[in-house]
């Protein structure tokens, strides 16, 4: 099956695209060598803002990975047939996203060559140990599932039974990866912005908006560049999921304001003040937070009315707005915001270093490259099975 990604039908455009991504990944790798050589001093991280861009994006992509469940669950548990064509698209999105997560963790480490210490000295009380464990499990699950489902389709048979068992396991597992990731933050004394049980549900809600939004965008791209059509019905089902998930996640962002500003407890207010209005003379995130607000509102305005949700063009704009706004909220400001008030009641600003940005871009490129190769394979398998089905149908009709 692999040859489908590598040789068959390799249009020139596709390979230019891959080469472009390889170059970006190479630039990122070069920056990583710098970071390995000089240490994390090349980043904008500091004694106070000890986690930044890397861990923020790690958190965001855990959400993207978990969102595959929004296709798998309706299809396998509620028999939503429309998703049949694209569950494997979601599974390979999950694989690429988990690989990106792992890379973001590795580049964030001061001692990456010791990463196995996490498994050599398993520490059951540490959420980070659990996070690494469930992420690894989730990666393996999705590789197995995606591969076998596609392989079966390639051969024109049903996937083996044990794959279905794995799929059922992968549903709660997806929830677990984002819950455990939320627990990284939600149990630390004195990090008030994080110290709320709402983090896990908020993460899940935003994941179920962001991931499907990305899936819709991917489906439109596949249609444009390869002719693979996910089907209007599937896209509309996804759009409905996004609408609900987006409403819930914006609701959860909003209720934090009530708790903070009605209680007037300074520790609870300070991060929100800093992010949205500026505090103690610092306000580096204010502009970008308002971009988040505008995009989130725009997304809701386009998603909630049926007319704009069912129009391809406005739906695409809405999906981009969902993705970008949630990336700002969760991928950029959640982690940095939580650390910005240091234990001495001062605000520390954070500006990422150039190598830090290039490394992040490199990881994005690598993730997109892996996804592109997967999707190329998916599309050619689908095209063949569609072709087989079509000729089979014709045959049937003639026989009648």
């Amino acid at each position: 099956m692999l040859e489908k990604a590598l040789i068959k039908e390799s249009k020139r455009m596709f390979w230019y695209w891959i080469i472009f991504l390889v170059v970006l990944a190479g630039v990122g790798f070069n920056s990583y060598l710098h970071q390995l050589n000089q240490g994390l001093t090349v980043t904008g991280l500091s004694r106070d803002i000890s986690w930044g861009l890397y861990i923020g994006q790690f958190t965001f992509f855990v959400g993207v990975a978990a969102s595959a469940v929004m296709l798998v669950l309706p299809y396998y548990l509620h028999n939503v047939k429309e998703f049949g064509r694209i569950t494997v698209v979601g599974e390979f999105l999950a694989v690429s996203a988990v690989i990106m997560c792992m890379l973001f963790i590795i580049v964030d480490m001061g001692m990456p060559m010791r990463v196995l210490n996490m498994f050599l000295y398993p520490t059951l009380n540490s959420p980070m140990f659990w996070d690494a464990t469930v992420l690894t499990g989730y990666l393996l699950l999705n590789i197995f599932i995606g591969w076998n489902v596609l392989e079966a389709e390639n051969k024109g048979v049903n996937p083996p039974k044990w794959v279905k068992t794995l799929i059922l396991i992968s549903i709660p597992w997806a929830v677990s990866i984002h819950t455990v990731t939320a627990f990284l933050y939600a149990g630390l004394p004195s990090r008030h912005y994080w110290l709320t049980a709402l983090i896990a549900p908020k993460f899940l809600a935003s994941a179920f908006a962001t991931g499907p939004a990305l899936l819709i965008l991917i489906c439109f791209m596949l249609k444009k560049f390869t002719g693979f059509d996910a089907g209007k019905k599937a896209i509309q089902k996804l759009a409905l999921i996004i609408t609900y998930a987006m409403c819930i996640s914006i609701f959860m962002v909003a209720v934090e304001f009530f708790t903070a500003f009605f209680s007037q407890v300074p520790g609870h207010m300070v991060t929100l003040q800093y992010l949205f209005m500026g505090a103690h003379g610092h306000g580096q995130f204010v502009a970008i937070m308002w971009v988040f607000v505008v995009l989130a509102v725009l997304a809701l305005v386009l998603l909630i009315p049926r007319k704009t949700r069912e129009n391809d063009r406005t739906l695409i704009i809405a999906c981009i707005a969902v993705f970008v706004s949630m990336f700002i909220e969760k991928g950029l400001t959640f982690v940095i915001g939580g650390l910005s008030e240091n234990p001495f009641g001062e605000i520390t600003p954070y500006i990422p270093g150039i190598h830090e940005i290039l490394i992040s871009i490199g990881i994005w490129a690598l993730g997109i490259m892996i996804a592109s190769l997967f999707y190329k394979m998916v599309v050619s398998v689908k095209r063949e099975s569609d072709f087989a089905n079509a000729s089979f149908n014709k045959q049937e009709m003639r026989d009648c």
Partner: protein
Amino acid sequence: MNINRRKFLKVGGVLALGLSIAPVSGVLAGVKGKYMPNSKALTGKNWAMVIDMKKLDQDIDACITACHKEHNVPDIGNKKEEVKWAWTDKYGHLFHDNKHEYMNEEMEHKDFLALCNHCENPACVRVCPTQATFKSKDGIVMMDYHRCIGCRYCMAGCPYGARSFNFKDPRPFIEETNPAYPTRTKGVVEKCNFCVERLAKGLIPACAEASKNGGILFGDLEDPNSEVRKILDTQFTVQRRPSLGTKPKVFYIL
């Protein structure tokens, strides 16, 4: 084909077995080579410290210098990446949830000594994914620099800003290396260790030794006759941020 596959599996299995036994043999070797503690070593069940700011005032810089010299703490020279085991900061910062608008200026800006609190319920130990940060039997929160993976989870966890990360190679920033204590490499976290290496030799912590007027007292909380306990029994003392439940064991007399 089949035989090849079976052979391959066999070899793989043996290799895997070997890998899984290796750590066990390491542990066994560790049991064999038990070492004898120094007979002069100071022993305690729960080490703690009392800092009397009235008495410490003059010696505060000497204390920090003594600590940093003893432990090869680099002087990085910028706030972003500074490494510090003991340092001074104003009351308004160290006790920032305990200050108020009308507070006596002098008190708010008075410099206090700060260091790791060797919490009885340490958040840093709870979060560390490798047990590179751990609590010893005598109540000291210690670090294994050779195990730390530099994930900095402990820095997010510690509510006292007691931990520093080596953003770059610290060695060029150490003025005079003390060969009796290891230097660190870039990429690991470090912090005060209550001078366990001195306790093992029968010496009190370097900062306590440098405070000539008895501004820093060190002793065993479990021992009702220890100096530390006597002070805690008779004087008004405070901890930093006690409401967080970490149970800090550095007490202050204001």
